[in-house]
């Protein structure tokens, strides 16, 4: 059996708020992601998906539990070690336009990780143009500003940015939720194609069970911070064990 690329053990995040009840955003989550696999995470808004992503990337310290990415224990990392971990994982965010600095071009955003890893400016620019083309945009988009392009185009550029340092794990945090249905389909198509071309694992976070069924090999269902069900999408949908999953499926089918 191969080693998982991402392993999450008993991951928990409790937000302590002054004078109010604690928020258990993620409770005791445990799952693995195998190399080359695409794992879907579904759950309604507020079920802790983004909090989970922030802990996986190490941007948010976990209350307890561990995240291990390709041999690096992210939950123990700080500073330099975290930067090393970020070379192996990148995130595509929900709101494409806001995921780029409004004062910098898309090209600047795509080149940033390369420049931070001492790639020359000319080389980084060439890579950015190639990446844009790989993601279905003309290379002229390097000079555009985020407010000058559509949401779908911006999300393509965000995917290009995420791919720039060739991460082993791509995390899509509701990367299609803010887009129109047709654009959503295009982005899914792009991701499917990229998966085929590049050797990459994907954590696909979504609140649309139909999309997850179409795109993912395996699926994790989150409800109020807890993982209530795991399995192959078709099986989970055919025979949901958990009451919440059943409601979720019934609501859309």
């Amino acid at each position, binding site marked *: 059996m191969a080693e998982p690329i991402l392993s999450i053990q008993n991951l928990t995040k409790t937000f302590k708020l002054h004078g109010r009840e604690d928020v258990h955003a993620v409770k005791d989550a445990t799952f693995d992601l195998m190399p080359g696999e695409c794992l879907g995470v579904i759950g309604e808004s507020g079920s802790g998906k983004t909090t989970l992503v*922030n802990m996986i*990337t190490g*941007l948010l310290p976990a209350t307890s539990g561990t995240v291990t990415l390709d041999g690096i224990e992210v939950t123990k990392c700080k500073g330099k070690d975290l*930067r090393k971990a*970020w*070379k192996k*994982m*990148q*995130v595509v*965010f*929900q*709101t494409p336009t*806001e*995921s*780029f*600095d*409004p*004062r*910098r071009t898309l090209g600047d*955003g795509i080149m*940033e*990780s390369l420049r*931070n*890893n001492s790639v020359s400016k000319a080389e980084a620019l060439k890579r950015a143009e190639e990446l844009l083309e790989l993601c279905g945009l003309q290379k002229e988009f390097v000079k555009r500003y985020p407010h000058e392009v559509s949401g779908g185009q911006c999300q393509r550029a*965000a995917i290009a*940015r995420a791919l720039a340092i060739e991460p082993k794990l791509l995390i899509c945090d509701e990367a299609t939720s803010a887009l129109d249905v047709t654009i959503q389909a295009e982005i899914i198509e792009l991701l499917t194609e990229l998966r085929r071309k590049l050797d990459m694992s994907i954590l696909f976070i979504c609140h649309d069970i139909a999309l997850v069924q179409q795109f993912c090999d395996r699926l994790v269902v989150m409800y109020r911070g807890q993982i209530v069900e795991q399995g192959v999408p078709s099986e989970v949908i055919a025979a949901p064990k958990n009451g919440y999953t059943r409601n979720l499926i019934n609501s859309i089918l």
Partner: protein
Amino acid sequence: MKNEPTVRVQKLRRDTLKARLILFSTLAILLLLVSVFCEQLCPYDPYAQDLSIAKMAPSAEHLFGTDRYGRDMFSRVIAGAKTSIFSTLLLVAIITVIGTIVGVFAAWIGGWTDTILMRISDLFLAFPGLVFALAVAGVLGGGLHNAIIALAAISWPKFARIARSQTLAQKEMPYFRAAKLAGGSSLKIIVKHVLPNIMGPILVTSMLDIGTMMMELAGLSFLGLGAKPPAAEWGSMISDTRGLLQTAPWLTFAPGLAIFVSVMIFNLLGDTVRDYLDPKMRKGARA
């Protein structure tokens, strides 16, 4: 087609805004030029006393008349521009830089550092400005330098608060997380992403503060805590001549008018820059 009138209104508003921006920046630049070239512009030596022509009413030779030592008031007002405007700009620059550094630092580090820095800034905010200036003058002595120090000490917290809240807002944006994941150092992210994105509101606040600070500096000088006679400074000139308000009102009127006009120009410029940077207006500009 339906929203054509609103587009036209927007365009009109934008055009007048641009006209205002050009007008007020020109006036502000003019003021700066006057203060830079004050020596060349003064028709007489602002410090030369000639008691034989003391307290002369405004005339063709002496536009604003002469004071009780026979110094040409017009020359003194122009010379005062240098002191008043440069010390104000210096003061505003100091508080903008210090406030921004403290605010960004507090928001960046967070936790206890943030709490302590913000409590300190509250402490300074709670101090009545004049009382603090009196205390500083008492400890360090009077003089323009110390007036600037006193005003800087109580005015930076406003900028620290703005910089802090703006930085916190940037930290919540997805682009900020993307920049972190790109692996840049804190300094790099602050310089490349945070500062450019928070500069707008901070600069507008500094612009709007120029007028206020000019008044406060003049006020301190008026009370004898800032520039000291015979230095030509508008506030101290008003203080110096107020005893003659009955017999030679022009002596008080001239520096008063200078303060009024300068403060107006900088305030209007600040307002216009704020409107100009307002994203709602900018969106209109792109439509």
